[in-house]
């Protein structure tokens, strides 16, 4: 889990990780919206091919990129399959399974293919964001965008405790699995550990003078020259995407 948790790569120092998180968030959200609205087939293809190249240049292992893309790809292929056999009126080929025949339609195939491309292109954008921006930076940007501080605070705590509980969960799940009852015991153990940990953490936080997170604590840096350059490049990409819609 730690390997595929792509936040790890966002901790590295390179041109893209140094860019302001606010810029990247706005860019990726707009890019996803424009990609979904795109009518040209080559646009998603360009994104699908170029994002992994950018990530490889940042020395993200190919195995990790493939691993991350595999899950949405499986779902995308299922959607393609359903659409091909389900939707349309122009038959392209028939599949005979015993007495039953399935007909694939041209319209369904086209529609499914477009969905597959959009899924993979949007996933590539998210991959780009997550591999270049760590969650704490994203949450700080969220606080700057006036997201509720309480939500951000719980998000921070969740992020912190995923790694703590992962270790505990690993120990618990490595224990021999005897029966269905063991499942409950495993989950119960994690819940008890989580509860005790929450009390201990709260006390420790109070002793260290912790106060609630609020907008005043946002320490976003001012935009640098590299950020302005990024705005220009991102702007060009967005205009190109917008023209394809």
């Amino acid at each position, binding site marked *: 889990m730690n390997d595929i948790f792509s936040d790890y790569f966002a901790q590295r120092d390179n041109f893209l990780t140094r860019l302001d998180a606010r810029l990247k968030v706005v860019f990726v959200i707009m890019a996803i919206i424009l990609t979904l609205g795109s009518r040209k087939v080559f646009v998603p293809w360009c994104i699908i091919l170029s994002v992994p190249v950018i990530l490889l240049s940042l020395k993200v292992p190919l195995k990790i990129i493939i691993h991350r893309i595999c899950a949405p790809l499986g779902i995308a292929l299922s959607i393609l*399959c359903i659409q091909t056999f389900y939707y349309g009126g122009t038959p392209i080929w028939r599949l005979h399974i015993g007495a039953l025949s*399935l007909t694939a339609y041209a319209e369904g195939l086209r529609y499914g293919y477009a969905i597959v491309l959009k899924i993979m*292109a949007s996933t590539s954008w998210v991959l780009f964001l997550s591999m270049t921006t760590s969650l704490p930076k994203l949450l700080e940007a969220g606080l700057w965008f006036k997201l509720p501080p309480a939500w951000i*605070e*719980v998000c921070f705590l969740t992020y912190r405790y995923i790694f703590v*509980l992962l270790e505990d969960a690993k120990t618990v799940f490595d224990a021999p699995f005897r029966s269905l009852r063991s499942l409950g015991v495993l*989950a*119960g153990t994690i819940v008890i550990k989580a509860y005790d940990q929450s009390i201990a*953490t*709260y006390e420790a936080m109070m002793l260290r003078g912790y106060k609630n997170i609020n907008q005043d604590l946002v320490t976003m840096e001012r935009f640098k020259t590299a950020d302005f350059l990024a705005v220009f490049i991102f702007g060009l990409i967005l205009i190109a995407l917008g023209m394809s819609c």
Partner: protein
Amino acid sequence: MAMKKTAFYLVLSAIFCLLASGNAWAMHISEGILPMKWAGLWYLIALPFVIKGVRDIKKKTEINPHFKVLLGLMGAVIFIISCMPVPVPTAGTCSHPAGTGISAVLVGPVMSILVTSIALLIQALFLAHGGLTTWGADIVSMGVMGSFAAYFSFRILQKLKAPLFLCGFIAGLLADWATYATTSFELASALHGSKSMLSLFYTILVAFIPTQLPLGILEGFLTGGMVVFVYKRRPDILHSLGVIKKAIPVCIFALGFAALLLASQTALAQEQGKWPGVDVNVVEKFAQEQGRPAWTPFINTDQGDLLLFVFLLAGAAGGFMAGFCWRKLFCEREGAQ
């Protein structure tokens, strides 16, 4: 014709299953699947629940100071449980539970939606599990539907005095199935094109059955087992989170009831004559106007101490019954608990 159609959907679903079985992330709708208008609609539906959750944090933190930290940890628990691969023998693959059954039972449905939204965001960003545009749809299916299904089933069964394991089991089971039914609906509503939405909904639903039917049962065991385990080891956790109400001693109940009875009798005695009932004011009055005055009752309990005697008899019979069944009513139940 109907048989052929059913067979067609079954074969289509089987293909869907074979393709989807390669990964364990079928519960979340992937990035880019939903068209923008549908993605926006699901965002709008999810938003009020998340806002309500954010507002409730403050109130809950005032009662329980470490509640916010607990929520953070609960988010991590959901994250881990919904990433936990569980082997599904019928489909020959791995899938994963929702985890919202556990959180809904422990921290309530609204807080469960809040932590689910956080777990889903982190999964979407860093594991390609779900997506940013489909975040709203995923919150509705896993957070809203899963949590409410779990919470209400748990509470209803608790009211019906069902065993704790059964309450948790049904909560986990329904949380999982409700999530998948909603995911199927979300996919079908967005992707049906010019064809019937219902038929695509059934296709996707049938496709989920080989993995989700057994997985729902497994999640039931997970949630039920968790509640019982925590109750046995650390009942204070369930009491402090309000999952199980502390048993109020019978004597407090009896004293309260007696005080209420006494107060009502005193008030009645003071108000005697001031507030005649609807029978006297309306029914008797109109009956009299129509020439149908009230008859003298065949058994007139107003005469002598007859009413008192009847109450005495009822009390004695009730007391005898309660005494006769005392062990069954109280001792055995306590022992079982």
